[in-house]
């Protein structure tokens, strides 16, 4: 008798549970449509010819597919130059990634004078707002003769405290005995780093590499401030220039935006599991 009541109760609960699942799924679905709408509209509009863009009511699916907008960007708007510059910046930011990893290792696995004070100093740089350093860094680069050069664009953002912090967190879990054993075999500290520590740190390096790529690909503020020549512009700077010059040509603007966003969407969707899990491991501890 009592057991049937219990199962009845359980069934009611189950039904309530699945009702809740449905409702929350629908709520998240509607929100999700709103979240994806700008991307959808961007991609659809980038393939529309100009006369279809200004048409009212708008077409959801392009009536005539055209690649003209993309072609125009590369043939007349120097997007090939911007792409090259952006890729150079991405390449350099990987050098920065390596430097961050090396520093993270130095802070994680060595006892030396002033270590803690220096690490606090590194962390303190995270709190400084970029608006405060923006002007003085420009002045410093100017006095070094580095304004309007690729070096000047790359240097200010090359290393970052947060990445150093994450590398240190990860690398301090590497057993010291392992490093000690390699040391006894006569390996130098540099070899230990390259042949032992780097391979072990693959997971964190992979995640950082993706984030570094995205940050480099999206870099906007420093190229904007430092580059005067259009030959040094990145995709972001070029796109904001395009918005000013071709204010009414939305097809062209959407093509530029789609070209910037699509690689990141693909990369992120492919690696999302690792990126999101990285937050669970390192982010909140």
């Amino acid at each position, binding site marked *: 008798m009592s057991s049937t009541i219990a199962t009845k109760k359980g069934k009611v609960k189950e039904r309530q549970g699945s009702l809740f*699942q449905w409702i*929350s*799924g629908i709520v*998240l679905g509607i*929100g*999700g449509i*709103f*979240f994806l709408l*700008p*991307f959808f*509209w*961007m991609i659809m509009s980038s393939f529309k010819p100009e006369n279809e863009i200004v048409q009212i009511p708008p077409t959801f699916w392009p009536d005539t597919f055209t690649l003209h907008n993309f072609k125009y960007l590369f043939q007349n708007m120097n997007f090939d130059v911007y792409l090259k510059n952006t890729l150079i910046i991405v390449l350099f930011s990987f050098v920065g990634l390596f*430097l961050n990893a*090396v*520093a993270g*290792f*130095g802070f994680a696995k*060595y006892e030396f004078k002033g270590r803690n004070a*220096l690490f606090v*100093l590194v962390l303190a740089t995270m*709190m*400084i*707002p970029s*608006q*405060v*350093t*923006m*002007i*003085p*860094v420009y*002045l*410093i680069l*100017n006095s070094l003769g580095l304004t309007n050069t690729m070096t000047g664009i790359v*240097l200010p953002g090359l*290393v970052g405290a947060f990445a150093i912090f994450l590398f240190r967190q990860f690398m301090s879990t590497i057993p010291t005995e392992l490093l000690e054993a390699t040391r006894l075999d006569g390996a*130098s*500290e540099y070899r230990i*780093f390259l042949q032992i520590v780097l391979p072990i740190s693959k997971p964190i390096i992979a995640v950082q590499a993706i984030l570094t790529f995205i940050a480099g*690909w*999206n870099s*906007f503020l420093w190229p904007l401030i430092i580059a005067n020549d259009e030959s040094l512009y990145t995709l*972001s*700077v070029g796109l*904001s220039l395009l*918005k000013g010059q071709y204010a009414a040509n*939305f097809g062209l*603007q959407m093509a530029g*935006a*789609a070209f*910037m*966003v699509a690689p*990141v*969407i693909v990369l*992120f969707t492919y690696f*999302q599991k690792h990126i*999101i899990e990285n*937050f*669970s491991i390192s*982010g*909140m501890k």
Partner: protein
Amino acid sequence: MRGFLNKQAPYIFIAPTLILLTLFSIVPILVALVISFTDMDLSGLANFDSISFIGFTNYTEVLADPVFLKAIFNTLFYVIIGVPLVILLSLSIALLINLGTSRIFKAFRVVYYLPSVTNIVAVAVVWSYLYNPSLGLFNYLLNLVGLPDVPWLTEPTIAKLSLILLALWKSIGLNMIIFIAALQGIPKSYYEAAQLDGANLWQQVTKVTIPMLRFAIFFVSITTMIGWLQFFEEPFVMTEGGPLDGTLSVALFIYQNGFKFNNFGYAAAGSFVLFVCIIAITLVQLRMQKNESDMT
């Protein structure tokens, strides 16, 4: 030589990053402080001799500048409306996704996180198109359901709200992921104990989940607050501070004075006012968090 290099290895490991961080983060703070007391402008850039110290003049002027005061008002508007909405929405979405059992909920994580990784300029360009008064999708959709046009970016207050909407869309994802990570750290046994005591889902969320998330909520509110006090790219790309300085933020004010009008000293003074505000607000929040944890 090799022995020496090996002995100095830890210093050699940290030296490159420390030099770069010092040169581009620590030294600039001091430089900014110094030039905020000078009348440095474009001529001072070419010839250091033409710069002279003018004491607190920049600070008194910037604090009396109606444009700067407007920028402070706008920034507070962004923070007061934006930050609670970011926390509320990202927490609710994280809770719903975390309670979901079907595999589709994993896909929602990606959907909601996607705007966070995309380029701000591209995003602003796309949203400018969506907000366009005559050709934009938003006004078209409103008209479809019989509502009148909204002056998305042309009326000062609505323009601020439009920028907040865009910034919400962009910043919910990252905070949602932080909340999901924190939610997964709550031991299952806590919920089982609550269920044994007869707690329903709502009670479990309010009595177990939210208290356990206190640190995550604190972390998200501090970082979001600091981020929104530096609100910059959205008004820079979409409205350039207009209409009538209606969307001008403090960060954009600093940028414009520095790199458009080349008043480096004046802009540096403005940036220090912002810096002091950020530090003060952070300290107040830390103090509040400390009091709260003392009480429990």
